[in-house]
Structure formats: structure tokens, C-alpha cells
């Protein structure tokens, strides 16, 4: 070949600041961070979040609380009907929100009808199908010859599953759903309407849930196997200790101690949504939005989507064994052998021949 590449030198390490150099040793490599930031701000971000749970668990309210605006479907429809749909519907609504120059296209996907029927068998199917359809759409875009500069990302990044606050344990519906969907999407289980549980009941409930999840092999976000390094693991272990988050949602503001805060006012007191002594909403919000949003998107893109892609590309191979490279090569197969064989003895050749035949 006409080039020789030395697989890389571990040195020379260039430290930007030489002890005597002053400004002149500065190269400017770290300016790339600023460039990346500018590019990200200009492009904007996309985030798709799905909420799953029985009706009446406070899904829409929680979404509104999380994003501090009316993002739920009920706020969008002119006459929100309270009827339960006959089959599970998937309704997705997109919003453009902006904060401090950062623009985001937030899509909230609602699943009215889930778990509300008498016979709830296979209720996860429409949801699985929807999630896989989004992967499929992305895959189709990706393998186009003329592709768009930026493929619109409609893949579901995160699925919040609402567990009703029974205080006992997970129901079969919960276990089935989470078991199936944790393989294709990041699931974040939350205990809805947690203001009906006392702190002890809450802790007991959480522990039971965690054990059941472990017993059933359900890997919820943050998944243990995707921890990048020790520091990551430490942070994620702390989060895993708190899963599932016991949340309370509210979009009403009340006056407490001279401040206006979001809460639920009852005869026996006001539950402050953002007070970590009252509920764990703040932890959920921090995890989802402030610290791990990019990580959630990455795991969706590089793990769940890739797994779907592998499955999809493999199943169209039919009865052929999957090849490691997809592109056909014209020269990878057996070279000519006959000419290489010399007459070492009639017997030996005969043997070889009989093996061939």
C-alpha cells in the first residue's frame, strides 16, 4: 500500500502551559469545547418521553410539573374527553421549549387506555409496536442513499412507568410490562400519588419493588451494565438505591413560608412537590433532566437502537448465516487450491480426494 501508519504514539504529551512560556505555548485545542457548545445550542435538542400507567395516576400532572408548562395532551385538546378508549391509543404531542438559549423539541407520548380494561392481556403490544416503529423509521432514514443532514429523532428515549401506590408489591401487569419493555427502552418506574403513603410504608414498598425487579431480571434505568467507570457507577448506585421514585405532581402554586411553590393543599397540610422531605420529585427531575438526559439519549441511540438494528438486519437474512460484514466482497472466498497440491503419493492423494468427495 502507499502509506504506512504507526499505530499511535502514546506520547508526546503536550501540556498547554509550559512553566516559562506564558501565552505562547497555548495551542487552543480546548477551544473545541466552546465550538461544540455553540453548535449544540444552534442545532437544538430533541427529547421524547413516554408515560405509561393506568388512568387517574397523575401522569399528565406529573409531566406538567416536570416541564413547568402545559405539555400534557389534556391541555392541548380543546375538550378533553374522560372516557377510556376501547383500545390503547398512542398520542404524541410535540412542544418547542426554550431555556437560557437552549432550545428543545420535547415530545410527550401518552398511552390512554393502558391497564384500564377488564382484560389487559397483551396491553404492552401496541406500545412495543410504537417503540419499534420509531426505531424502524430511523433505520429507514439511515439506510437511505440520499439521507437528510439531520435525521429527525422520534425514538422513545425514556418511558416513565407509573406504579399505583398500593403499598404491597408489583402487580402482574406491572411485572409483565416492565419485563418486556426494559429490553427495548429505558424504563424509569415511579410510584404515583406517593402522598398516600407514609414514609415507612414508602420505604417498605420501594424495597419490595426493588426485590421484585431483581427477581424478575428487570433492568431499569440506570442499567448496571452500562456504567462507564467507577465514578459513574458510584453516582448511578446512589440513584439505583432510590428507584422507584415516589412522586407527587402538581401544577398549582401555593404560598408557603412567604414563597410561592408548587404543591397540593389538603386539610392536614400542604405537600410541597419540590421538597425532598415530602417526595422525591426533585430527584426524578434531576435525574431525567439536569444530569442524565444526554446519557438517556445515548443509551437509546447506541444500545437499544443498535440492538433493534441487529435484530432487524439479521432476520432478513433468512436461512443464511449472518455475515459479519454486510457489504459483498468479490475476493474473500477460497483461493485456487488444486495447483498447490503436488503428487506426494498416490495413496495420499486418494485419501484427500475421498475426503473432498
Amino acid at each position, binding site marked *: 500500500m502507499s502509506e504506512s501508519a504507526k499505530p499511535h504514539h502514546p506520547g508526546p504529551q*503536550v501540556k498547554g502551559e509550559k512553566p516559562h512560556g506564558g501565552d505562547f505555548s497555548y495551542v487552543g485545542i480546548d477551544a473545541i469545547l466552546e*465550538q461544540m457548545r455553540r*453548535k449544540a445550542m444552534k442545532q437544538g435538542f430533541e427529547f421524547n418521553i413516554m408515560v405509561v400507567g393506568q388512568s387517574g395516576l397523575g401522569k399528565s400532572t406529573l409531566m406538567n410539573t416536570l416541564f413547568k408548562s402545559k405539555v400534557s395532551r389534556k391541555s392541548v385538546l380543546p375538550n378533553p374527553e374522560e372516557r377510556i378508549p376501547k383500545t390503547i391509543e398512542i398520542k404524541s404531542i410535540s412542544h418547542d421549549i426554550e431555556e437560557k438559549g437552549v432550545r428543545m423539541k420535547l415530545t410527550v407520548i401518552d398511552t390512554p387506555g393502558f391497564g384500564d380494561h377488564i382484560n389487559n392481556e397483551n396491553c404492552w403490544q401496541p406500545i412495543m409496536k410504537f417503540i419499534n416503529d420509531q426505531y424502524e423509521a430511523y433505520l429507514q432514514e439511515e439506510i437511505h442513499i440520499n439521507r437528510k443532514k439531520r435525521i429527525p429523532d422520534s425514538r422513545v428515549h425514556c418511558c416513565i412507568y407509573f406504579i399505583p401506590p398500593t403499598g404491597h408489591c408489583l402487580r402482574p401487569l406491572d411485572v409483565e410490562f416492565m419485563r418486556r419493555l426494559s429490553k427495548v427502552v429505558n424504563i424509569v418506574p415511579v410510584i404515583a400519588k406517593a402522598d398516600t403513603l407514609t414514609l415507612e410504608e414508602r420505604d417498605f414498598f420501594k424495597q419490595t419493588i426493588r426485590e421484585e425487579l431483581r427477581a424478575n431480571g428487570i433492568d431499569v434505568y440506570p442499567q448496571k451494565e452500562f456504567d462507564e467507570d467507577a465514578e459513574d457507577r458510584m453516582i448511578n448506585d446512589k440513584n439505583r438505591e432510590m428507584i422507584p421514585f415516589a412522586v407527587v405532581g402538581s401544577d398549582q402554586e401555593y404560598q408557603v413560608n412567604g414563597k410561592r411553590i408548587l404543591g397540593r393543599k389538603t386539610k392536614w397540610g400542604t405537600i410541597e412537590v419540590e421538597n425532598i422531605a415530602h417526595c422525591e420529585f426533585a430527584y426524578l427531575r434531576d435525574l431525567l433532566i439536569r444530569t442524565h438526559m444526554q446519557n438517556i439519549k445515548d443509551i437509546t441511540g447506541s444500545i437499544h437502537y443498535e440492538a433493534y438494528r441487529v435484530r432487524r438486519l439479521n432476520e432478513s437474512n433468512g436461512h443464511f448465516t449472518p455475515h459479519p460484514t454486510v457489504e459483498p466482497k468479490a475476493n474473500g472466498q477460497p483461493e485456487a487450491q488444486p495447483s498447490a497440491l503436488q503428487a506426494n503419493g498416490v495413496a495420499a*492423494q486418494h485419501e484427500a480426494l475421498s475426503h473432498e468427495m
Partner: protein
Amino acid sequence: MASSDVALLPDKGVRPLSLAGHVGFDSLPDQLVNKSIYQGFCFNILCIGETGIGKSTLMDTLFNTNFENFESSHFEPQVKLRAQTYDLQESNVRLRLTVVNTVGFGDQMNKQESYQPVVDYIDKQFESYLQEELKIKRSLHNYHDSRVHACLYFISPSGHSLKSLDLVTMKKLDSKVNIIPVIAKADTISKSELHKFKIKIMSELVSNGVQIYQFPLDDENVAKVNTTMNGHLPFAVVGSTEEVSVGNKMVKARQYPWGVVQVENENHCDFVKLREMLICVNMEDLREQTHTRHYELYRRCKLEEMGFKDTDPESKPVSLQETYEAKRQEFLVELQKREDEMRQMFVQRVKEKESELKDAERELQGRFEQLKRLHADEKAALEDKRRLLEEDQSSFSKRRAAAQLLQAQSLTANGKKDKDRKNSGFM
């Protein structure tokens, strides 16, 4: 990745909302940047220029380090490329830099094919990325991106115009890589000559339709700086790793009897501008252009060449998957056929060889038989002769015995006679 238009235009069905409080996703760019810091960055520069024009020195000066390059000879029969990868770090940013230098460019007598190895190298990097992207089990985030992000083309400071080699090479490369032309060894040109030279170069590039890299103007933060810099192209650079003391500071410079050319002095050369543009302001854009323009173009051409289309003759969208499947079946069938052919040929040859050998064996056997017979005959003959000899011997010994007996008898008779005679006296 990013389009050059403003992204997120209000689509139908997307409502703009205002937030009632602080949500917190303004930390998203930070999250993204942190992830990138963790992963590290990758940047690949290709330097094309004649031997001795100062490519390695400029790289050393740009990145403030000694890349340990050795001088190349002028007698290379063909243009080669030498790629070296380095890990650099500045504050918390890790950069994997690959510098590819041409070796022997412009040294040959016949320079018609000089550009080819360069084009081949660039295509090869695109190809390996495409391969990775098309794999079933792929790991794109771990992939070491070796595609060339920037190409520094070194123009010799003749002061007149571009050489035809330069034009031909740049024309071949402009659709494959971001070309940034630089005038090397700029300390050999005077200021007024330099001005005229730059104008001449740019007009020649335009009239020959060469698309060099334009610094992007869509981001207001940097549009102003980039516009000014676009006007200064090509940059006239001087490289030096030696330090000379000027005033009370040590600066990178070249010392001549008539003065000192300071590398980082903007009055002396455009080095600072080049560093600013290449690294501090536009590195990310260079990488992006490579990915979204040059790589996509390569991918499109490659896939079309292989026969994939987005829509078939009836203008119905054809899935890449189906086309690929069809091709794959075709290919596998062909492969099977060829394998069978080869197998048959092999079997035949073996048979032939076998019969040949059998013949030889038979022949040998025949000869062996013959020799054996000969041997047996001779042995028989020998046996006969021996018998004869023995018979002879026995008859001879019989005769001898008989003769001896006779002799003994006659002797005794003679002896008597002799005795008698002796006794009787000799008569």
C-alpha cells in the same frame, strides 16, 4: 448532523411553549460537552506539499510539540503517504491527532499520477468508515475516525502563480476534503509581492473551479472573524521550532543576518491566523463538513455504484434491505457456482494426476517384473553353468583320481620295474 439553516423551524403540530419556571435542561449542552470530554476528540490533518517545503516544521509549530519527523529523500519513485497518530492533551481536552504527510510529492519526473495516492488514501478512510457503518454489529462511538478533516496544501513561494501540479491536485481533491491552501516559507516573499501573489492564486483557483474550504459564516459569534479571514486566504506561513530572544522574551522565530522573522508576529506572517482558524475557531466545523458533505457524497456515489437505489424504475421506494438481499443472494449463488467449478477442476486434476501416476506405477511394475525375470534367467543360467562346472569338477576329480590310481599303480609297477631295473642295472 447539523444543517446550515436554522434548525427546529416551527413544524406543523409542534407548539411553542413558554416555561413557568426553571426546568433545568439548559444544562444539556454541558452534559453533551462532558460526554465529549470523556470520549476525547479526533482530528486528522493531511499535509500535501513538495519535499522540503516545511510541512513537518509547520505541524511542529502549530501544535507546539516535536513530532519527531525525519527528512525524506528527494528520490522517491512514487508519491507515498505517511500517517502518524499522536495523543495530545491541553487542560482537560484530549485530542487524538493524526498527521498525514506526503512523501516525494513533486519529486518525480512524470507527475501525472502524483495525486492518485492521495485520493486513494482519502477514499480508503471513507471506505473503512462506510464499512463500519454498514456492519450489522457495529460500534460507531468507539470507532477511531480516520477520515481526513482538513487538508493543508502547501504552495511554493514562487511569487508568480500556482503550478499546474497544484491546480490538478487541488481540483481532484476539492470534492473529497476541506482544502486550506497555505503559502509556505513566506519569509522569502516581500509584502507587496505577497499581496499580488495571493490575489493571483485566488483568481486562478476561482477560474479553474477549485472549491476550497470557506470558513463558515452562519454563526453570528464567529461570522465576523471568519469573513475577515476568508479574505486573507491563502495564509502565508512561516514555521519554526527554534526560539530566539527578542527584546526580553524568547519567541519562536527564524534568525537571519538581516533580521529575525517572528512566527507569532502578525506583521511578519499569517501563522497566528492559521492557528486561530484551524484550531481555535473552526475545528468542529471542519469535522462536521467532512462528515455531512464529503463523506455523504462518497457514500452516495459508492452505494449507487454498487447498484442500490432509493426508488426503483416505477418510482416506488425500494428498501435498501431488499436490494441488498437480492444482491446478496446473487452473490452467494455465484460464489457457490465458482466454488463448485473449482471443486470440479480440482477433482479432475487429481484424477488426471492419479491416472498418470498409476501408469507410471504400472510401468515401473513392468520393468520390475522384467528385471526380475532377467535376474531369474541369469540365475538359472548361472545355475546351469555351475552344475556344468561341478560336473566338470567331479568328472575332473574322478579322472584325476583314476589317473592318480593309475599313476600310483604304474609307479609301484615302475618302482618294481625300476627296482628291478636298478637292481638289474641300468640298461
